[in-house]
């Protein structure tokens, strides 16, 4: 029997059994070489004894890799036999090992369970605000910026010219600046410097520029959410990452599926969580509860929303974007990014879903705490890409994210 009392454990001993939390979340796998932090953790859990052996007796035992186990916990809702998911897992493990080598310290159990007890006031008492109530309140309260509607007019009219879009966008200095920074970034990969909207339009296209402008003006609309409410930097990084990854995936998928539009996917990826912004604004306490619930119990954030609020961010997006007459093709990809088969263009929604999961995976080694929601069966397979392309996509993402983030923030 190798049962050892907690009080007599010392660093260097090797664990012989799994230590799970009460939800079955694996905290320490068998084969972990114990450090001080691990021993403290077990005391805080209230454990009396565990199975372990002293270092000297641990010769034949394969030591567990803590990185691997940490990452594994984020994938419990994912199909372990799906090739794309497996590749994403391997990418996440490799990134985390690299981050650890460079000095990143994996979050402790304390940090995962950190609770925020600020008393925030929700607009509606629990269970009494429906998704429609929240959206109606928002659209009554604030008018969407006029420029959005003028851009939309251009998108809707078949006879719009490059001069039309250039004229409209140029009236908003902030919008023009962001747009130009974006198209000048290596992400778009143009050889020459693009110094005017008209020039951008001639290189990128009327429809594409209009779509990007629409996305950016939507983001600007939400710029005023107070930082105490929510860590907006993290939110925008996640949104932008999803936008970039969506575009990168769609540029490759376009080779076999001509109707996929990379710029549309960039905008859809950028706005895929727009419903969350409404929830933050109207129900801040409930939002934080949902986030904490998701983190503590390691369930997908979208599921936590349903359980805590009674609806999720895609239902809000559906109502909001319809209210704003958002282009249907973008709306359907956003609303169905957790259920691509239900979208009118399932391939585009699938791209957003894959990009969202990939974003969560790459964020783990930046301290992200949310499990991957999972990819629908055949979502990846329907795109006609090889799983070996995923590493290249993530590499390209790494090259561009900081610059694009700079263009937007």
């Amino acid at each position, binding site marked *: 029997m190798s049962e050892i009392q907690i009080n007599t454990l010392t660093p260097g001993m090797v664990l012989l059994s799994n230590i799970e939390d009460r939800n079955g979340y694996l905290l320490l796998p068998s084969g972990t070489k114990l450090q001080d932090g691990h021993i403290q953790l077990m005391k805080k*859990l209230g*454990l009396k004894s565990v199975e372990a052996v002293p270092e000297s007796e641990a010769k034949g035992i394969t030591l567990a890799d803590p990185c691997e186990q940490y990452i594994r916990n984020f994938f419990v809702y*994912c199909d372990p036999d799906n090739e794309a998911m497996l590749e994403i897992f391997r990418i996440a493990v490799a990134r985390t090992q690299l981050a650890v080598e460079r000095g990143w310290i994996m979050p402790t159990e304390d940090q995962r369970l950190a609770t925020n007890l600020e008393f925030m006031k929700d607009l509606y008492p629990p*269970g009494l605000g429906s998704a429609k109530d929240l959206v109606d309140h928002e659209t009554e309260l604030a008018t969407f910026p006029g420029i959005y509607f003028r851009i939309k007019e251009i998108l809707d009219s078949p006879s719009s010219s490059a001069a039309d879009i250039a004229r409209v966008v140029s009236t908003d200095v902030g919008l023009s600046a962001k747009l130009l920074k974006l198209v000048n970034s290596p992400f778009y990969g143009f050889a020459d410097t693009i110094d005017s909207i008209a020039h951008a339009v001639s290189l990128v296209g009327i429809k594409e520029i209009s779509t990007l402008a629409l996305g950016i003006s939507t983001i600007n609309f939400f710029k005023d959410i107070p930082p105490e409410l929510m860590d907006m930097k993290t939110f925008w990084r996640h949104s932008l990452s999803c936008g970039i990854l969506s575009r990168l995936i769609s540029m490759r998928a376009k080779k076999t599926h001509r109707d996929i539009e990379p710029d549309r996917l960039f905008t859809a990826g950028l706005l895929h969580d727009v419903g969350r912004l409404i929830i933050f604004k109207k129900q801040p*306490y409930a939002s934080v509860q949902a986030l904490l619930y998701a983190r503590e*119990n390691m369930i997908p954030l979208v599921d936590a929303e349903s*359980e805590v*609020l009674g609806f999720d961010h895609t239902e809000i997006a559906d109502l909001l974007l319809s209210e704003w007459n958002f282009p249907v093709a973008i709306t359907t990809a956003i609303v169905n990014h957790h259920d691509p088969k239900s979208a009118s263009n399932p391939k585009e929604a699938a791209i957003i879903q894959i990009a969202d999961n990939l974003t969560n995976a790459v964020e783990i080694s930046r301290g992200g705490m949310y499990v991957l929601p999972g990819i629908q069966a055949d979502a990846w397979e329907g795109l006609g890409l090889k799983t070996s392309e995923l590493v290249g996509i993530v590499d390209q993402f790494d090259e561009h994210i900081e610059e694009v983030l700079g263009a937007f923030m």
Partner: protein
Amino acid sequence: MGLLTSSSLTLRKTVKITDKEFDDLRKFIYDKTGIDIPIRRRYLLENRLGTRLTELNLSSFAEYHNFLMRDPGRTSEMEKLCEKITTNETSFFRDIKQLNVFRSDILPEMLKVQEEAGKKELNIWCAGCSSGEEPYTLAIMILEQLGMKVISWRIKISAYDLSPAMLAKCRKGVYGEYAFKTTPKGMILKYFEKQPDGTYKVRPKVQKLVSFAPINLSDRMALKRVPKSQIVFCRNVIIYFDEAMKKQVLEGFYDNLLPGGYLFLGHSESIHKLSTAYKPILKPGGICYRKDA
């Protein structure tokens, strides 16, 4: 940069569950406990229960299902299964906003009503008490409110749970540091005794107010046997049930409540689609539900 991924790393660590096995197991669990496992939790189920298969030396989920139906150890295995498929994160003084509704409004009201009627007794039912943090928290709040006067009252908190293992933990009353992450420091010293190994034990004056017993909430007859209560707490328990079962359980609570009694559900669980019998009472901190007097 170019990341080299290890092609020997696998994601699958457990036996695979087939479509039929998943359907059969879902139905079995629902029939036994009322707990509804959504289809999207399939891989979670594989992960959580897969370790049980290894520990029991079983090679398929069909064998596991058989074990749950026939093996002499099936009752205790069923408990372990329920623990693994429900999220059990709990702590003392959890969701303080809602508890404040109890403390500031409902509890004083109930104590006043009872005292004026000449019946200095209070019965509270904690349905789904898990490892005991909730009933003990309520006991502490009552002690804080009544102080020495508690001697002249008959306070009974009946705490029930599906799992005998959980109930054993409740009765022991010993908790690690994580159970106190939402607890005011003053409360810890006053109502818990620190043990040599760093854990905390609930003080006898708190334990005296709480009794523990097993119950299966999906069993209609079992609900009828619970003593009538002034207040029912059932927070974040019925979220695992489907709509039909939720309605049944809520009916059971209604029958159990004395006239003028209150029901507390989880902070965001809502009744409005499930029952029209209760009257929602809105307070700044949250909602509770009242049975007409």
